[in-house]
């Protein structure tokens, strides 16, 4: 399937998308803007990864999509979190915290 070999990053992207959508339903561009804003421009989301990820998440039924109208009256595809997605976000968050904690510990031991 995907040729991307950075699984951690991909997993991270999925989590970030889920987190962003947990605030409110958004279209793809909105998601990328939101993540960028919140991370103070540290995390730049590449469209090339964003959309395949969105479609993947949708296929796993973690998110759902509907066509709606954007701020400037354009037809746009809005994604929102499903209940499964909420659970998934909680799980990913927990495992991410375990992971960063573990990495932190490794780095602190010198």
């Amino acid at each position, binding site marked *: 399937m995907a040729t991307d070999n950075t699984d951690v990053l991909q997993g991270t992207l999925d989590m970030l998308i889920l987190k962003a959508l947990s605030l409110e339903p958004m279209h793809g561009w909105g998601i990328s803007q939101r993540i960028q804003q919140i991370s103070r421009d540290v995390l730049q989301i590449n469209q090339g990864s964003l959309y395949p990820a969105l479609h*993947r998440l949708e296929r796993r039924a973690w998110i759902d999509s509907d066509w709606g109208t954007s701020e400037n009256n354009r037809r746009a595809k809005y994604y929102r979190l499903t209940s499964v997605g909420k659970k998934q976000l909680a799980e990913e968050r927990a495992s991410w915290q375990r992971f960063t904690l573990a990495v932190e510990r490794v780095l602190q031991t010198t």
Partner: protein
Amino acid sequence: MDALHLLARRARGFLRPLLSRRDAEAELDEEMRFHLDAEIAERIRRGMTPDAARTSALRDFGGVSRFKEECRDAWGTRVMDEVSRDARYGLRALWRAPAFTAVAVLTIALGVGAATTIYSVVQAVLRPLPFHDPASLVAVVTTYRGKDDAASALDFVDWRRESKTLTGMAAIATDAMTLTGRGDPERMYAATVSAGLLSMLRVRPLAGRVFRAGEDSVGAARIVILGEAIWRRRFSSDPGIVGETVRLDGNPYTVVGVLPTRVTYPAAAEIYLPLVFPTGDLDEGNRGARYYDVVARLAPGTTIEQARAEMRTITSRIASAHPQADEGVSVRVTPLLEETVGTFRRPLLILLGAAGVLLLIACANVANLLLVRAAGRDGELAVRTALGAGRARLVRQLATEALAPFLIGGALGIALATLGTRWFAVAASDTVPRLTGAGVDSAALLLALVATLITGVIFGVIPALRFARLGVSGALRGAGRSSQGSIARRRARTAIVGSEVALAVMLLVVAGLVVRSFQRLMAVDPGFRRGGVVTFRLDLPNTRYGDAAKLRAFAAQLDDRIRALPGVRASGRVLRAPLSEYNFNVGFSVDRWREETGSRRPAAQVRIASPGYFEAMGIRLVRGRTFTARDDANAPQVVVINQAMARAHFSGENPLGRHVWLGWEEGGVRRGGEIVGVVDDVRQFGLDRPSAPEMYLPYDQTPVGPMTVVARTSASPDVVFAAARAAVRELDPDLPLFELGTLQERFERSAARPRLYMTLLATFAVVAVLLAAIGLYGVVSYAVRQQTREIGIRLALGATRSNVAGTVVGHSLTVTVVGAALGLAGALAVSHLLQALLFGVSPTDAWTYVAVVGLIALVGVVASWVPARRATAIDPASALREEG
């Protein structure tokens, strides 16, 4: 969310892109456009000029198609998508190379079609007999001095009584009877069979019952079983016919049952009657009168070897007890299937072999075509790989492309096989038994399809895999030039074409031998002139023409009527006409009758002819005279003999005036008489069978019921037949004419089997040679294309155009000669198998082999002619600039 909901949602997420691809694509596009527009708007808001915003946004957005592909990946539709794209691409590639496609598809279709057809026919002919436990059925055949003969009633009765290894032994005689009373009188083949036969075969009647034990004893009621065909045609499939009475030869018979066509045995039977041995047959004096076929079933637990041993013991005991009749008599026990179709096994297997070879050639040809194509595409593939096409993807696509002609050709092959089998079943129905209802054999079809598919995989897919190993740079370097891979490929192609030529040569030799054999057969002088002669048969029933005077009277009237038929110049009657199933071999003594044991007495074929017969048939008189009207009942008995008899029994002496006497007495009169004439030999039993010693007796001195009328006429046969029917009806309204036809038809029918084999083998050979020629052409013209530069250099260095052409033709001839040598060796090795198919030609006939070599060499030259012309037309300057 409950599980069901989740499932539904997942299913929707999964299915939607699959089900509505177009919508999904459109939505994806719209989503991308929205994103881009939003990004541009954002950049303008941040202070960029609209143009700069657009340009930078587009740049940052990156390759749309790549991540669209990834989105599709996420949909999971990619595999399906690519397969259908490969198929489309494959078809497009085929369409772009119509010559390649046409040749490949036709080749595969012909190979599959021919092989499947012949295999299906062989299956139909050699399939088990349609009876219970068919493997245990055997034929018991009397042999006399090693030659097959029918069994006598007494031998049969003794066998049946004494054998423990065989059960249900039954005797069969075929007879012809006339059905009257319902429409026109009709002549039909009646099988008179022991009452136990049908229950031994365990056939189930369509209506009524089969014969019961005892119904074949003397004095039993007259009963008949109808065959399905007659029942449908004459009695409109009425099951109520059982219990009714029909008239056969003027006598009433009660119908007791109807037998389905499928289980007809013997094959020609139209009706069945219980076989009641005529009382005379069971007199010890008639042990030598052999008319009966005998079938039986192996007793449970016995082998055919045990049955053979036992039957031989019984028969030799009978022979030593009755040396007068049975000296030299033995017995042969053969599986019934073998007895029925045994003579067809060898020719059919030869045909099957030939069809198999054709399939091999077809596969080789396609393999060759695929290799040529693969070679031409190294460059293209290398470029595509360099541009980023996935390797697995390319291999898959090459495979799809290679297999496409196999699928189309295979489908066409199935159609061809269906038509071919149907054609064969009709065209050969008179020639080859058991073809009714023959259909395409699915196993054979599968085998042929798999064989071609394997070729496709080996020569279409494996080169693709090799390419994958070779890698981009190697392929790019080698593109258009002689790389390592292309040299190996050229060798492979040369080897393939060489074997094609070898196989084609084998088929050519076989076909050549069979064609020459057929020519020899057609060149045989049959001993009569076959043009413009019509024949039909009559059989005066004993019931109404019981005595000689009545027979003579009818015959005289008939002769007058026949002479008056339209266009008749000469006419006569005979028992029976040449090339018919008739064998009346009678022992005789020269000069005076001597009582001798059967084995020491010479025998000759006896025919009964009217005075006009020889002239009507165009049988040449060698010396003396033929019969005249004066050779009547009151005149001294006379005979006419053939040259074979004159040679065999009167070597060097003048037979005229001598007497021969036959082992045949009637009414106290011994048949035979003074030899008054010698006529030319007639091929009575088939063009390929030498004439036996033979004598003719005049009809009026030996009147019999069955007769064949022959008339040499200038009118059309149909006119003559209509007039003849009317004429005979006036003489006797209940007398049917049957086996109406011309002598020419009879002649052709007698050669139908060799003609069929020849037609098929020759067709296979022609196709094989065409395929081999295409293969040669492909290899040579490809070599020329690859060596354009080399040829250019040679021309630039002063080689003449004829040098170049010679090299090209020489290349083709080398392949041809090596292939032909192998093919000839192969043909010589298998030629002895052909013996059974050949007449008058040795399987190692030198002329055939020489002609084949000449023909194949010619094919080699012709196939390389066009490429050679192209080579000589190469312009050195441009050839050198190219690929420089």
